[in-house]
């Protein structure tokens, strides 16, 4: 009998329509997998079996009725990062300061998923307020990477990435402010896209940095990622930054055949930005990228080395703009209207206690940075300066796309997944994990990460970056690359340690991290 969790979302969709499988059976198989694997992986902060099965039954009724124009995700399970509001459920954003908070309404994307009939299984672990590149900054413990349980899955959407990589769900939702979808997708060997700024409404999503945050999908193949983006994208008047730009239905009709997909690469003009092969990049990961570029050229794409000269300024610019916006957004967590209220009664003392104890170290660090960058006397030197450099970073991209490049090809991450604790002592080392992804957020552009091979047994991601609103083109290129590599042995390889993840005798990720920290201290 087929293991239902190994199917791709579009394969599930086909079987649901043919009556070969029910949405309830799919939900049960995935809930079982999620519950069995959560001890060793800690990918989920909540699994709602009762709600998921009710949604699945409703989807089965719609499927039986052969609802005309039904979306391909009708009846297909999905996981949501725990910063997406689902009415009546928790929404911790990975923080103690939202412990016990119950979302009083659905996010726009939750409404969309309900309307297409996708089945929400639960909420996934994440770095607190989406601040982090390893998921080690979650107040609810780290998440393990199923390719090597002693390594991180990346972050901040580490739980959403692992839920998909470990076959707990075929699809999940993440958010990406500086790389938080693409980097964990790369480190766990799956597909993840950060859409154009404004593509998906953020109504009902916990905010981090409002000029950078964007919602996007994770999936195990390109067609599935495109279908999930299709389901959630589009204008919503409750988010004034969501753009009135049409969402093409062609997202649901990417080439099914590998040959057709590969033929779409012919004549495409791709830029290879030399600054993305950063100092400190792992040489073997670099070889995977170079081999991928050679394969694209072999399929008829025209690849030219290009320059994005302000790339080196991206990190400093990002770590002014994002903390500044975060310090303002996170001012609302004061223990007055929601969340725990700590302290002994006077208003200032309550603020200090609630925020001092409610936020974790990385969030406090960023609030401090942002508050400083916006404070009297420093606003022009830091914040305005960073916004001006942001203009230069954006112009670098604009210049290339005006020259007619269809997309840029680059690494997603300078390294493969690293061990627990490897970067926790040095915030700047952690921040460098996003050197290849955060300029894309600064420029508001779409970027996709797709698996391109293994380095010493760990997944490597290839990043494709396009002009604003070019998601369909990026998916076509990514689908072409997928077709090109369809025969590669790594494409059929399951995460190396997936078999250990259902063993209740295995340590939890927190225990593994503690053991590694202990070993490091000796």
């Amino acid at each position, binding site marked *: 009998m087929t293991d239902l969790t190994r199917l791709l979302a579009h394969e599930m969709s086909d079987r649901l329509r043919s009556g070969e499988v029910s949405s309830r059976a799919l939900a049960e198989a995935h809930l079982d997998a999620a519950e069995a694997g959560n001890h060793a992986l800690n990918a989920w902060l909540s699994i709602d079996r009762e709600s998921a099965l009710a949604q699945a039954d409703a989807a089965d009724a719609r499927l039986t009725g052969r609802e005309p124009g039904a979306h391909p995700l009708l009846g297909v399970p999905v996981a949501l990062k725990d910063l997406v509001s689902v009415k009546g459920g928790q929404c911790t954003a990975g923080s103690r300061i939202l412990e016990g*908070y*119950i979302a*009083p*309404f659905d996010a726009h994307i939750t409404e969309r998923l309900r309307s297409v009939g996708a089945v929400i299984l639960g909420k996934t672990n994440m770095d607190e307020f989406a601040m982090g590149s390893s998921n080690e900054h979650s107040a609810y413990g780290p998440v393990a990477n199923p390719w090597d349980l002693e390594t991180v899955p990346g972050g901040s959407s580490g739980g959403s990435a692992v839920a998909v990589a470990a076959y707990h769900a075929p699809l999940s939702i993440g958010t990406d402010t500086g790389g938080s979808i693409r980097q964990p997708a790369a480190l766990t060997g799956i597909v993840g896209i950060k859409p154009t*700024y404004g593509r998906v409404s953020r109504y009902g999503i916990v905010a981090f940095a409002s*000029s950078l945050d964007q919602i996007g999908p994770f999936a195990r193949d390109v067609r599935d990622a495109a279908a999930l983006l299709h389901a959630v994208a589009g204008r919503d*008047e409750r988010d*004034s*930054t969501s*753009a009135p730009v049409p969402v093409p239905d062609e997202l649901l009709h990417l080439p099914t055949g590998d040959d057709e997909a590969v033929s779409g690469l012919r004549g495409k003009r791709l830029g290879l930005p030399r600054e993305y092969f950063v100092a400190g990049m792992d040489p073997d990961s670099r070889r995977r990228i170079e081999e991928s570029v050679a394969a694209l050229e072999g399929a008829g794409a025209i690849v030219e080395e290009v320059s994005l000269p*302000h790339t*080196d*300024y991206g990190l*400093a*610019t990002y*770590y*002014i703009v994002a903390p500044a916006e975060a*310090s303002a957004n996170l*001012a609302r967590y*004061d223990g*007055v*209207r*929601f*969340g*725990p*209220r700590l302290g002994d009664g006077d*208003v200032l003392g309550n*603020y*200090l*206690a609630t*925020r*001092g104890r409610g*936020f974790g*170290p990385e969030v*406090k*660090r960023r*609030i*401090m*940075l942002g*508050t*400083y960058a916006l404070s009297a006397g420093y606003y022009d*030197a830091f914040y*305005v*300066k*960073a*916004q*001006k*450099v*942001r*203009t*230069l970073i*954006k112009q670098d991209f604009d210049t290339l796309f005006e020259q007619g490049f269809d997309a840029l090809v680059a690494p997603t991450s300078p390294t493969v997944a690293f061990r627990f604790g490897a970067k926790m002592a*040095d*915030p*700047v080392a952690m921040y460098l994990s996003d050197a290849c992804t955060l300029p894309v957020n*600064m*420029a*508001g*552009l779409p970027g996709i990460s797709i698996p391109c091979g293994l380095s010493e047994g760990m997944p490597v991601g290839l990043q494709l970056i396009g002009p*604003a609103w070019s998601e369909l083109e990026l998916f076509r290129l990514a689908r072409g690359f997928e077709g090109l590599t369809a025969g590669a042995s790594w494409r059929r390889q399951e995460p190396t340690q997936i078999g250990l993840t259902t063993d209740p005798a295995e340590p939890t990720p927190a225990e593994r991290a503690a053991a590694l920290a202990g070993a490091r201290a000796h």
Partner: protein
Amino acid sequence: MPGLSRSDVEHVAHLARLGLTAEELGLLEGQLNHILDQYTKLAELDTDAIAPTAQTIELENILREDIVTPSLTVEEALGNAPAAAGGYIVSPPILSGE
């Protein structure tokens, strides 16, 4: 660029309404200065003639019809409040009783 002193860190923590322990303040002093060192790189760039970017997509103000639509009830809006009474959130007094 001058570094942050311990009293600067305490001042910023106060502005941010973060109650930090002495240990946290000490750790942050070192970490924030290390991060601020990275910022000095931006001084290499002459940006006098460059306009700042606050948002990346060219959206003008988008207006909607001013029509009342359903929203949360008072009970729903108060559902997460640490303390509520009579349809209001209860908070400590902000003004002293003098």
